[in-house]
């Protein structure tokens, strides 16, 4: 862990509201992210886990400047990204790249793989002439394991399998030398036997190119495999974060405990499965006016104060934090 080193990306108290046209909620806005803070470090992966609708993808989209933030700080190498000029944004996009869930939708079906890799290289002026461009594309394809490279470059996306397409998307982020990669469920659309290949490739990028990863997933087992640190999201709130091993072996927040007890694991077979302590199965819709802990309606250990204020951060150990009244003095 390089916690002492300066983080590449530092997010402080990020809030993101989306306008609501009514219907679902009486409020005019839905608060998708509420008071989210974390850091990304070079050569390290942060897994963001949670159920669908917990705001995992919204974080990546705000970081990519696909959505503007509502409040909070987004510091990339100490620079607030919301204030970047048009020219600076281009440089920012060069350094921060995204990998999407659906590799079938991420590539243009009427262009060859060569085109897909040539475009970022040309836009960001990474090569000087055509020969260099071709050489670079071939070496990128080899690096992501798409060999023979010269033949793959000529192919169209429909000629590649899902795993191969995801490798092309990874090659695109390598092409421009991104420092930060935001990977939004990069393996969930792929066949099971292919997933590990992609995870191992990202692992290699992380180690060899010192890339900082944000790995968004609902699969805790792959988070454990790939990411050094994990943050658990629930309804737009980060409820617990720390080193992945600590989160999985010693979960503190009742929601994390629920999530981990729910994961199927063959090693659990024949052991007495612990019954889930879930009071109310409805997940709340959060708005700016909502208060308290979002998990209170389902929590078996909820207290009066839980529905009044969101608990502050409690430090469990040097690198393990939780937001729950069960811990700490207050």
């Amino acid at each position, binding site marked *: 862990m390089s916690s002492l080193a300066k983080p590449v990306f530092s997010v402080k108290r990020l809030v993101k509201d989306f306008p609501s046209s009514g219907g679902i909620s009486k409020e005019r806005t839905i608060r998708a992210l509420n008071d989210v803070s974390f850091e990304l470090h070079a050569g390290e992966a942060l897994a963001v886990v949670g159920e669908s609708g917990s705001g995992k993808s919204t974080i990546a989209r705000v970081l990519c400047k696909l959505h503007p933030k509502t409040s909070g700080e987004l510091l990339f190498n100490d620079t607030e990204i919301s204030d970047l000029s048009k020219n600076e944004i281009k440089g920012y996009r060069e350094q921060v790249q995204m990998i999407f869930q659906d590799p079938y939708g991420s590539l243009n079906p009427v262009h060859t793989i060569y085109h897909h890799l040539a475009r970022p290289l040309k836009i960001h002026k990474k090569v000087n002439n055509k020969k260099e461009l071709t050489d670079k594309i071939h070496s990128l394809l080899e690096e992501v394991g798409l060999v023979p490279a010269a033949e793959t470059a000529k192919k169209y996306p429909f000629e590649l399998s899902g795993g191969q397409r995801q490798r092309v998307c990874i090659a695109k982020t390598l092409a421009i030398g991104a420092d930060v990669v935001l990977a939004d469920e990069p393996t969930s659309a792929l066949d099971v036997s292919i997933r590990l290949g992609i995870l*191992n490739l990202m692992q290699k990028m992380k180690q060899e190119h010192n890339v900082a990863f944000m790995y968004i997933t609902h699969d805790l*087992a792959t988070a454990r495999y790939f990411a050094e640190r994990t943050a658990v999201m629930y309804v737009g709130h980060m409820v617990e974060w720390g080193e992945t091993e600590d989160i999985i072996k010693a979960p503190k927040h009742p929601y994390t405990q629920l999530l981990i007890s729910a994961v199927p694991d063959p090693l659990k077979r024949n052991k007495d499965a612990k019954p889930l302590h879930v009071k109310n199965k409805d997940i709340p819709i959060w708005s700016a006016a909502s208060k308290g802990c979002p998990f209170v309606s389902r929590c078996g250990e909820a207290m009066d104060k839980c529905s009044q204020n969101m608990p502050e951060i409690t430090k469990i150990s040097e690198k393990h934090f939780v937001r729950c009244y069960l811990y700490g003095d207050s």
Partner: protein
Amino acid sequence: MGEEPLLDIRGLSVEYLVGDTRLRAVDKVSFSINKGETVGLAGESGCGKSTLAFALAKLHKPPALIVEGEVLYEGKDVLSFDDEELRRFRWKETSVVFQSAMNCLNPVISIKDQMTDVIRAHHPEMKSAEVLDRARELLQIVGIHPDRLNQYPHQFSGGMRQRAVLAIALALKPRLIIMDEPTTALDVVVEREIMDQLAELKEQFGFSVLLISHDLSLMGEITDRIAVMYAGKLVEIAPTEDVLFKPQHPYTQGLVNSFPHLFGEKKELTGIPGNPLSLYSPPKGCYFAERCGQRMSLCESVDPKLVTIHPGHKTKCHLFAQGAS
């Protein structure tokens, strides 16, 4: 648990007509499901597991064709049933819960009407009040408050819709439920709730389950036996523990090694190199040979037979061909 087979699949092959070519999506698959047993059918997308599920209830439609084989339900061949026999067989004896089943519900018809429709169709003699009571009872069984019977699918969450579909599947007390990826679209906590519910209901009603999934971890918790398919062929079938902890076929080994564990030792995993087979150009020998780390020259020319390596454990690989019957 009885050892008597409820459903016995013998040499079933299903082909798809694509242009002038016939793609063999299911190739001579044989296995049985005993009374009260839960069998898992595992494999990657495109391996034919859903096609097989359709064929079992004769629900397949052209361009899919059953070219050979038998599906014996208590000794009677389902494939030779006429329409009336099929109507009675489906739902009453066997019900099918399809992938993303929660989208199977008609959005403009209330849950009540969708449930009572099934009961009325198969029990025309029942009085309205009885039908309604049964529907309320079914919702209660799957853990939904009966007062929500008059609601529409959009008023239910994804997990509740899936439970409602499960309730409809149970409506006629079938003896076999075929579930095709029943929880793939759901969050892990909801998946756990549905699976616990299923285990409880199974205990209560004693039906058999064929659970189709790509998720071996999920299967590991609830199945008695697991059958593994690759490119339309059954490559291994054995008790769940053997498949998960002592897999014999190189493909099963690869598949088991493709899942990182949440607990236990953390080690580097490799997955399976290469890409799934295209059925347009099937090889002459073993279908898995191209991706197999233990390939021999024999594998490229001869397709191995499914052989019993010890009682209850069959595998289709040349590594085990010697000394087999």
